[in-house]
């Protein structure tokens, strides 16, 4: 009995980890721990503004603008890679090109643009750390970004590396829609930061 349960649990390791992560996040969000962590992070955000990135970002508007330009271009590239791959999975475009070929090439573009997005994003965050700390939308963006990265590297990519004919077509479509929703939220909340606060 216990052996078969252990085997079943072992077979669904990734699912169990995923559900456990979601539950931990839910408990964290609904408990007082979220506020405690947020308060503790204040010192860290103040320190971010004192770093080289923070000082340059705050005092030299042109540098911030140039880095932001690369951040937005990388986001556009990332969005393009996501849309091309996911629209192909949904059968909305490039139906005459093998899906695996599009997925592999789009993933390479995605990885490069993600690196640029993260690097430029850290620089920009340092420059406006005192502002973004107080914006709920910034924290939603970080949640969406972390979800997106984990989703791509621990679920989407390992799943879609397999022969697509072996995968349930509904799951493929669900993965594509989920991916679009996550990255649209990342982009929308990111743009929202620019309009929020002062």
């Amino acid at each position, binding site marked *: 009995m216990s052996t078969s349960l252990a085997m079943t649990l072992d077979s669904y390791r990734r699912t169990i980890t995923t559900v456990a992560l979601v539950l931990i996040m839910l408990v964290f969000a609904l408990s007082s721990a979220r506020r405690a962590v947020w308060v503790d992070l204040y010192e860290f955000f103040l320190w971010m503004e004192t770093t080289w990135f923070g000082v340059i970002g705050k005092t030299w508007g042109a540098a911030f603008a140039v880095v932001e330009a690369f951040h937005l271009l990388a986001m556009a590239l990332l969005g393009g890679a996501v849309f091309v791959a996911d629209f192909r999975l949904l059968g909305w475009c490039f139906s005459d090109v093998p899906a695996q070929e599009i997925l592999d090439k789009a993933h390479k573009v995605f990885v490069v643009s993600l690196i640029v997005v993260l690097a430029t994003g850290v620089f920009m965050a340092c420059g406006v750390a005192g502002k973004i700390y107080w914006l709920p939308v910034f924290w939603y963006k970080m949640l969406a970004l972390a979800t997106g990265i984990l*989703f791509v590297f621990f679920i989407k990519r390992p799943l879609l590396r397999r022969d697509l004919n072996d995968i349930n077509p509904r799951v493929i479509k669900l993965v594509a829609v*989920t991916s679009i929703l996550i990255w649209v939220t990342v982009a929308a909340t990111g743009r929202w930061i620019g309009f929020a606060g002062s």
Partner: protein
Amino acid sequence: MNDEAGRDKELADLETAATAVGVTVMVFFVVYWAAQIATTYDLLAMAYGW
């Protein structure tokens, strides 16, 4: 044979995990954006007396 069964199990695990994340993300997306639209509407209503 064993190798193939192992791959099938791994695929089932991946599909279940993907479904769990997909449903969670969709629920979160609907709740989050519905709340944002509702609060924005309330603000506009206060501002313009709709």
